């Protein structure tokens, strides 16, 4: 599959400059099935983004009740019934793998369908274009106005457009910060200028990036900043659906009048009448008739535009359509079209998605309600006591991941007659030192273990067994007991 760019026809020439200035694109409004699909998806995705932080989820008295919350000061992330601690950030790895595989699967099925319909850059650019069209009118009006010298009317149109863009951009940034704090409280704080500087800085940053990316840079983000087109071009195959100009049907292109005459005398005439509608509606300025293109985001708006023209001139629709390389070739050879969604790569992607989902689900369902970690004192490694016993000291940290305060006991296994003490601990329970840990908290404590100096050359292996005395669940951490003879 060859990838060419239609942006600068001189690129292939040896003397061409390395720099090409952007040619401003004025996408024209269009209607049709793909435009409607894009609009519906735009409403759905933006609604999710704008309203998700306001959804509540009851987690009991000691936890926030926001369904999706990334609580950075308290080092917690909440996603409906899932609560993640910082040390469990590997779930994020799983999510990223799932996202990548879903993207690859979409690519194997229908090319850059993500780029065309779901990518935030596309969605916000689409929204900004809709505003532009609403204020400034459609393609032709905009081109003409831009050619005029600056006057009051032109200035007012531009001012209004940019003001609306900034408003949307500001709203976008404003919602972003709601994912990081209790949304209703933060909204109130923001209104009364009582929120922290981080909130305002984040909002300003995102306002700026949204305005610049969706309003000013648009297709340049896809062309020059995004790595996915390059990766996608390397990953796609001849069975993936791509927005394709059916060159076998369209060529030789000529005006409608000439084509009608040619057909009358039995000469070959393509369906393409070179009306340029497909180029006019393209949000990235691509001429799809040049073949697969790095700039094409597979949004299908050119299909809508072409279908409209084909209907007008009474030719069959879908001169431009979602089609595969294989079928273009097969039609040329007079063979039946085939569609193969089940291929080794799609099976592999789905298998990976299922495997990662199962692993993540298993990890979530069997998530420990508390964890323990132990660090041996580094200095001194052991202490000799006045009666000749040896004492080792440890820092033990218990993380209570449940929303209730719990009482734990500590037992140390692996030494004869070991005397275990928690410094600052609570009274003994069943002969074992105990300590309580608050709801959804960690507690660090100093633990000493005293035993007879056994003259062993190898350090004793210890198991620190932490037991919830109410439900009997345990967590274990391992470390060593070292003596003057076993300090290696």
């Amino acid at each position, binding site marked *: 599959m060859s990838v060419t760019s239609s942006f600068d026809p001189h690129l292939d020439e040896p003397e061409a400059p390395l720099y090409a200035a952007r040619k401003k694109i004025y996408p024209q409004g269009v209607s049709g099935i793909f435009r409607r699909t894009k609009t519906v998806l735009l409403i759905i995705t933006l609604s999710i983004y704008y309203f998700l932080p306001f959804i509540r989820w009851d987690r009991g008295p000691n936890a926030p009740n926001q369904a999706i919350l990334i609580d950075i000061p308290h080092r917690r992330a909440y996603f409906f019934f899932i609560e993640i601690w910082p040390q469990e950030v590997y779930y994020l790895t799983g999510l990223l793998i799932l996202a990548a595989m879903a993207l690859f699967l979409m690519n194997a099925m229908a090319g850059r369908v993500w780029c065309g319909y779901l990518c935030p850059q596309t969605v916000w650019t689409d929204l900004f274009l809709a505003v532009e069209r609403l204020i400034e009118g459609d393609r032709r009006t905009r081109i003409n106005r831009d050619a005029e010298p600056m006057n009051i009317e032109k200035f007012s149109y531009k001012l209004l457009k940019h003001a609306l863009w900034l408003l949307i951009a500001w709203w976008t940034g404003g919602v972003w910060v709601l994912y990081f704090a209790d949304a209703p409280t933060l909204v109130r704080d923001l209104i009364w200028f009582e929120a922290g500087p981080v909130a305002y800085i984040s909002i300003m940053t995102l306002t700026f990036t949204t305005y610049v990316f969706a309003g000013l840079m648009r297709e340049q983000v896809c062309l020059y900043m995004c790595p996915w087109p390059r990766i996608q071009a390397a990953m796609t195959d001849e069975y993936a659906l791509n927005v394709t100009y059916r060159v076998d049907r369209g060529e030789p292109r000529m005006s409608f009048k000439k084509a009608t005459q040619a057909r009358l005398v039995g000469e070959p005439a393509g369906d393409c009448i070179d009306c340029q509608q497909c180029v006019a509606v393209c949000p990235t300025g691509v001429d799809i008739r040049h073949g697969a293109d790095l700039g094409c985001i597979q949004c299908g708006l050119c299909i809508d535009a072409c279908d409209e023209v084909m209907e007008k001139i009474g030719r069959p629709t879908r001169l431009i359509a979602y089609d595969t390389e294989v079928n273009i070739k097969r039609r040329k050879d007079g063979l039946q079209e085939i569609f193969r969604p089940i291929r080794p790569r799609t099976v592999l992607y789905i298998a990976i998605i299922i495997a990662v989902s199962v692993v993540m689900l298993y990890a979530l369902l069997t998530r420990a309600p508390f964890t323990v970690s132990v660090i041996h004192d580094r200095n001194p490694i052991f202490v000799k006591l006045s009666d000749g016993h040896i004492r080792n000291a440890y820092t033990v940290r218990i993380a209570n991941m449940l929303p209730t305060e719990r009482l734990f006991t500590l037992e140390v296994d692996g030494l004869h007659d070991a005397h275990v003490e928690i410094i600052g601990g609570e009274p003994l329970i069943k002969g074992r030192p105990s300590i309580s840990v608050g709801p959804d908290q960690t507690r*660090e404590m100093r633990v000493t273990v005293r035993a007879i100096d056994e003259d062993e050359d190898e350090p004793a292996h210890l198991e620190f067994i932490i037991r919830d005395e109410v439900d009997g669940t345990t967590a274990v951490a391992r470390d060593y007991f070292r003596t003057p003879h076993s300090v290696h």
Partner: protein
Amino acid sequence: MTNRPDTNLDPRKAVGTTGHDWDGIEELNTPLPRWWLWTFYATILWALAYWVVYPAIPLATSFTKGMFGWTSREQVVQDLDGLKTLRGPMTAKIEAASLQDIAKTPELLSFARAQGAAAFAVNCSPCHGAGAQGFKGYPNLNDDDWLWGGSLDAIHTTLQHGIRWDADKDTRASMMPAFGRDGILKPNEISAVADYVRTLSALPVEKDADLKLGQKVFTENCAACHGEKGEGIQDVGAPKLNDKVWLYGPEKVTIMERITLGGGGQMPAWSQRLDSPTIKSLAVYVHTLGGGQ
């Protein structure tokens, strides 16, 4: 880009050369990229602004003070004040609570241990070691052997007033005579009593050791402070001699050296240097190292 050179032309004509010529090799006078140039100008502006806003230029006896009179020293003072304010509520609680209450309350305990550890690293570790493990002549604070007492209050008093620290009239004081240097004991008596001291903690001695003489010397000269059986007396800071922990070491020659020279270690009175909450935190920290009584 209309003001860009048209590179379809001969580049030498388009941008010209620097005029340098090395054996027929010329250098194109290609203009700098504009983004680079603007960044460069911006850094110059930035530097000029920096000169005006911040102290910059050294003068004969002074320097330019900048627009706001900012100094890094002032900044440090502000940062420290900020930290003091931040810790204010907890510091007040530590100040108000008794040592025993601090050790019993998890919130106060973890704060005191953190503050104590920081203060220990700065003030105490040069002598007692980073892990309070001690060195020869400087006690290990992790073990259960205490010269002047290992209760919270005893540790606190030691920290406040120091040991043999003349500038503090309440300092802990006692002095072991230099039995050898001052000629109180004869060399053979020192040797004998050193052997006897080793037997107190069941350490082996040489066959020809005169333990009878050693015991006699011990009873007459040492027992008053170190106790009849070498059990030590904390009131006078006399170490236990019948346990496994040795301040200077259990070897006979080391014991003889201590008997010969006498004396004792010194520790500053920290109330002259540290504020009361810090000393309290230090006492709790040392107590919770494991040896507190």
